[in-house]
């Protein structure tokens, strides 16, 4: 069957190459036309690669796969969904806090009803890190803990350009917080796929991601559950899942603040 299919394609090869080229251009230009898309998958449809979305190329293919299989293993054994999203930069006209929340919502990190998701967002060019924590995990991972993971594990590693070791160490640390009995599968998960097979998989994955993203664009509003409501006064910021964040500039750009507050209040002048 497969052979037949290939032959058919070859027969129409006068069309095949230009179409391929246009498709290639399309994908090349997509990030420029649209801001970096949300990691928007249905958890039911999550495949091992979906736990990690690296649009900034900080991870090598094997690193990404290892990380994804670690996260998948953790999900399978404990039902907690940890996601890692790496983007080149923050889209214009949004804030880190709001955007990472929207990402977490769009990706539907965590199981429905349990809200036990965690999303690590890394913005390469902005040099920003944020950890978004589902309400179901807040007791186990306090904002203080998330802040410490950023300041003490991620930021120092990133300064040394050790992205994968840093992310992996951070994830293991957080996993241990959530479920101390969890032990990662030996050898980084058994996904028996060679690099050769893996490479053509990437464009397919990207295509799937974009399709899912566009199909979710309209629905996204549904998932905005009220983490930034204006209840009183003009600038009230009130959101549920929250995390610490910090930059990872070497010149002391660490800011613990930003994510710790999730109450309400009022502001005025005199």
């Amino acid at each position, binding site marked *: 069957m497969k052979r037949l299919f290939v032959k058919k394609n070859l027969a129409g090869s006068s069309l095949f190459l230009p179409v391929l080229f246009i498709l290639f251009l399309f994908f090349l230009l997509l990030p420029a036309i649209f801001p970096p898309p949300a990691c928007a998958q249905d958890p039911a449809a999550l495949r091992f690669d979906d736990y990690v979305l690296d649009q900034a190329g900080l991870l090598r293919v094997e690193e990404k796969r290892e990380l994804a299989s670690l996260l998948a293993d953790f999900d399978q054994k404990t039902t907690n969904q940890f996601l890692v999203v790496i983007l080149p930069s923050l889209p214009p006209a949004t804030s880190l806090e709001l955007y990472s929340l929207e990402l977490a919502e769009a990706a539907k990190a965590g199981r429905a009803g349990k809200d036990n998701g965690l999303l690590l967002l890394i913005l390469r060019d902005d040099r920003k890190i944020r950890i978004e924590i589902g309400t179901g995990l807040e007791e186990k991972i306090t904002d*203080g803990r998330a802040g410490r993971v950023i300041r003490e594990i991620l930021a120092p590693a990133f300064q040394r350009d050790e992205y994968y070791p840093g992310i992996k160490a951070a994830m293991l640390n957080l996993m241990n917080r959530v479920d101390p009995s969890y032990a990662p599968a030996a050898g980084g998960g058994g996904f028996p796929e060679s690099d050769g097979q893996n490479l053509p998989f990437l464009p397919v994955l990207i295509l799937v991601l974009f399709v899912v993203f566009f199909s979710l664009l309209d629905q996204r509003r549904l998932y905005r559950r009220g983490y930034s409501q204006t209840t009183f006064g003009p600038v009230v910021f009130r959101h549920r899942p929250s995390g610490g964040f910090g930059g990872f500039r070497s010149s002391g750009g660490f800011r613990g603040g930003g994510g710790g507050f999730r109450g309400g209040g*009022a502001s005025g002048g005199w």
Partner: protein
Amino acid sequence: MKILTHNDKNRIVQAIMAAEKMTSGELRVHVEKKAGKDPFLRAQEVFQELGMDQTRERNGVLFFLAVEERKFVILGDEGINNKVPADFWEETKEAMAAEFKESRFAEGLMEGIRRAGEALAKHFPYRHDDIDELPNEISIS
């Protein structure tokens, strides 16, 4: 630019201590010259810098003043915010602003502390095992 005398500060600290006797919640006052940005956002940073987001029941309340910009913010953490009526912070703000407009800063703060203290006492009554999680002082930077 000094809006609180030494005596004022003592009275405010007394008010905080009196209020905290009735509740497991935490009250703090932080005064700054300039917020330098949206005071509400700055107040959130201060909230975290002061470790106010670390209370067990998330029931810290911060009064933040940016003196030169004549702005102030009341922040109540999630625990207390979920309990009080929707207009609670706004009403407290109005009461405080009325005093502040007369340059009665200590009175305004004490009024805010009294109101927030009452709300905290109602929803988070003092427990015998309660420890004062944060220092009772006015922080100034």
